[in-house]
């Protein structure tokens, strides 16, 4: 199988994601330049973290106009697996592939720290190797991670089990304390209705090697690999 990591101008977790996929998971991985119109036959597209176009207007707002977005949207519509991490999640929201928006963190500061998330749904291509209720120790690094959606949307998200990760305490309880950025319902990760597009604020690529303090994020990439390889 083959991963594609999209490079927007201002992406800065592109190399990190590439390193983890190629060197930790030993999978064929390629960069996808935002000005091209070519997904190079990838099985999974990762929109990495960073500051696409500097995020001066609104996080992810300009990246959605990049040429490659046309192919990415078509790929999503055909059921292709897409993972948006941090800024990649924000781009997916701007694109409307996932509902809702991101507001500034509740303390109005950039936040970089290890936090915990609880897996809410293990019946997805992104979590199938995990168990619902499992807790991951994983870093966040963002200014705009305060998830907001209308009450009607929230009802839909819950009804359709689209909430994949919630910010939690280390023991798994969903508390206000654990909700570092102020997200509605402690939402840390969401997928689309068709379950092939996932956006998440935490960085699984930063939690894929024990030397760096946690390897809990590996389960997400393992799930994707397992899902795609099982279909081949």
């Amino acid at each position, binding site marked *: 199988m083959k991963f594609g990591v999209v490079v927007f*101008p*201002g992406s*800065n*977790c592109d*190399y*990190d994601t590439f*390193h*983890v996929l190629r*060197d930790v998971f030993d999978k064929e991985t390629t960069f996808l330049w935002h*000005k091209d119109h070519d997904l190079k036959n990838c099985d999974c597209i990762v929109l990495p*973290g*960073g*500051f696409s*176009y*500097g*995020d*001066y207007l609104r996080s992810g707002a300009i990246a959605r106009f990049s040429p490659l977005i046309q192919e990415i949207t078509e790929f999503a519509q055909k059921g292709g697996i897409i993972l948006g991490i941090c800024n990649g999640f924000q781009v997916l929201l701007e694109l409307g592939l996932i509902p809702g928006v991101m507001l500034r963190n509740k303390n109005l*500061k*950039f*936040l*970089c*720290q290890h936090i915990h998330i609880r897996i809410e749904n293990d019946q997805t291509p992104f979590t199938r190797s995990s168990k619902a209720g499992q807790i991951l120790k994983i*870093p966040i*690094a963002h*200014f705009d991670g305060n998830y907001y959606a209308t009450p009607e949307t929230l009802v839909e998200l819950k009804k359709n089990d689209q909430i994949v990760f919630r910010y939690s305490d280390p023991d798994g309880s969903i508390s206000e304390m654990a909700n570092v950025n102020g997200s509605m319902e402690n939402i840390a990760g969401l997928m689309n209705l068709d379950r092939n597009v996932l956006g998440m604020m935490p*960085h699984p*690529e*930063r939690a894929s*090697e024990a*030397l*760096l*303090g946690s390897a809990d994020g590996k389960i997400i990439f393992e799930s994707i690999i397992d899902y795609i390889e099982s279909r081949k």
Partner: protein
Amino acid sequence: MIDKKLLEKHGLTFEEYNRIVDLIGKEPSYTELGIFSLMWSEHCSYKSSKIHLKKLPVTGENVIQGPGENAGIIDIGDGMAAVFKIESHNHPSFIEPYQGAATGVGGILRDIFTMGARPIALMNSLRFGPLSNSHNRSIIDGVVSGIAGYGNCMGVPTVGGEIYFHDSYALNPLVNVFCLGIAEHDKIFYAKAEGTGNPVLYIGSKTGRDGIHGATMASAEFGEDLEEKRPNVQVGDPFKEKLLLEACLEVMNKGLIVGIQDMGAAGLTCSSSEMASNSGTGIEINLDLVPQREEGMTPYEIMLSESQERMLLVATNKTVKEVQEIFAKWDLEAVIIGHVTDGNKLKVKAGGEIVVDVPVDAIVNSCPVYNRQSKKPACLSRIRNINLPAPPEDYNKAFLLVLSQPTIANKEWVYRQYDHMVQINTVFLPGAGASLLRLKGKNRALALTLDGNAVYCYLDPRTGGKIAVAEACRNLACIGARPLGVTNCLNFGNPEKPEIMWQFIETVEGIAEACKAFSIPVTGGNVSFYNETEGAPISPTPVLGIVGIVDDVHKAVSQGFKNEGDIILLLGKTKEELNGTVYLRALHGKEEGIPPQIDLAAEKKVQDFCIEAAAKKLIASANDISEGGLAVCLAESVFSAEAFLGCEVSLKDSIRTDALFFGETQSRIIVTVEPENLDTVLDLAGKRDIPITRIGKVNGQKIFIRHGEKPCIEVPVALAYNTWKNAIPKIFQIKS
């Protein structure tokens, strides 16, 4: 007409002006005067510091590039090199905290990637006035946000640093930024303009009127005209810089360029004249071709602008097309504005006329060098002998008070605003004594630290200079790293005042002596003079950035306690040294007397022992004793443990109890060992002639310290932790 007033505005003396006339054989034009004003400013010319900086050791077997380039370079093995440098952005950060600090980060990043290195880590050393003052808090908020805004967007992690609070920085905060990059030996680039006829390209942002006379501003004291100087501060665009970084590394990787220089202080003037000077050539440029952001800019303004995110690059006629294509791919301008010439002259055309025509050597290498007068400050003898206040009645109270001092307290409020993990190399997160960065695919890892204690330097600059080096190296030794190279940022007041010059000379000589004792070369740095507002200087503040190496990243030692029952050992011996300590300032507001002294040979032995024991996997944790003394050192190890682990310690020395707990005697490290390693460690210490004392064990849920049999400090871990952790956020929450 050039008169006294115009010269004053340009920061030039009459003597300097006459020298310029002699050198260029004519009266300078207005634009030429502007050029000399910048290039002969203290900031660019080092005219007051040069003769003293020569005392620093600059050579060593690992040195690839010493001082004089954009950054220093040391060999780190396997054909890789570490490129690093520290710079100050003090003056702009006071006038406009966010942009001042942000563009400081932007500037140091360019210094590193100009040389072909990919920046992998930033650190910063910050000094502010007391947090109790709301104006100081707004400066801190602006500076921290500015550093975060720029560094985070660039995708370069801010992995560590230091912050101190002291009255002397209230009107003159210090913002020193450090950057380290990695390059392959054969892909290092220099500021060269070789090959007559080769095209000179202007890259990056358009030129505007921002930052004109930034370097001159940084070479004068501040008075009441502070607000007027705000337009001198540049505005940063980190997104543009990120594109510049990627595009520059791409043309370098493909071997398409001859030389490159960033436009930092003194902008187009400095980059063009230095590149020509380095290569013994000349440069001719046409300002009509320079991309401009504003209408009607004069040649003077274009040459002196310090607009950010710009580079000057020399390609060849063969490669220029491909170079321009790569920059176009990254949506950046790359415009040919001139070419390399014979004849060692900087020639600038505008509107069909020649507006500058001067020898580059006159601009770059002919600034007078001053051996300024120096005199020991009279006040020093007055504050030499003090009567120490009586020891406290309640040691628990004293301990918690020291832990809550902003200088000692937890800095998470600051560092969690910085992305410190991007690039996924950060093994030890901020808050550790030194930062540890893995090198992907290698066993070895890089260790970095910034250090400097201005109070010691105020009381005894020579000792303060030595301790700054020793403590930085000690931080590295604690994690098991050998120091490889030094960069320093020397922040002082007005060098035209003999008492400031004395502080400077003493400090530099102290640093030189310590660097020689540790056999580590200084590969570059920065001098920031004129840190005075309305005549009040800062305390002398050298900041040392030291880069070291750990051979096996898996053997690196962290400062947190590891296991219940581990034995706590003290390396070194505690003397009665209370003057200049955080404790005396916190409890008694005293900053007097002779600060802790240092024996460099003894220090080196303790550090070597720690490095050896780490390599042999004999120690479980190590933390150096510095500000706050032994009690704070123990507390830090308690707080850094994965699960809180308390400690039980008993100290037997017959000296004042407060000196024992809070004194800042140098050359001491607290290590813990698993019981089965105890004999081996004691043995090794004996062989290496290291004073070592068993003082207690990791145990319980309290920090419990006795003097002899007498319990003095007995505080639950949670209470101590919360005091330390919440001190800074509390001040911001309540008072903001």
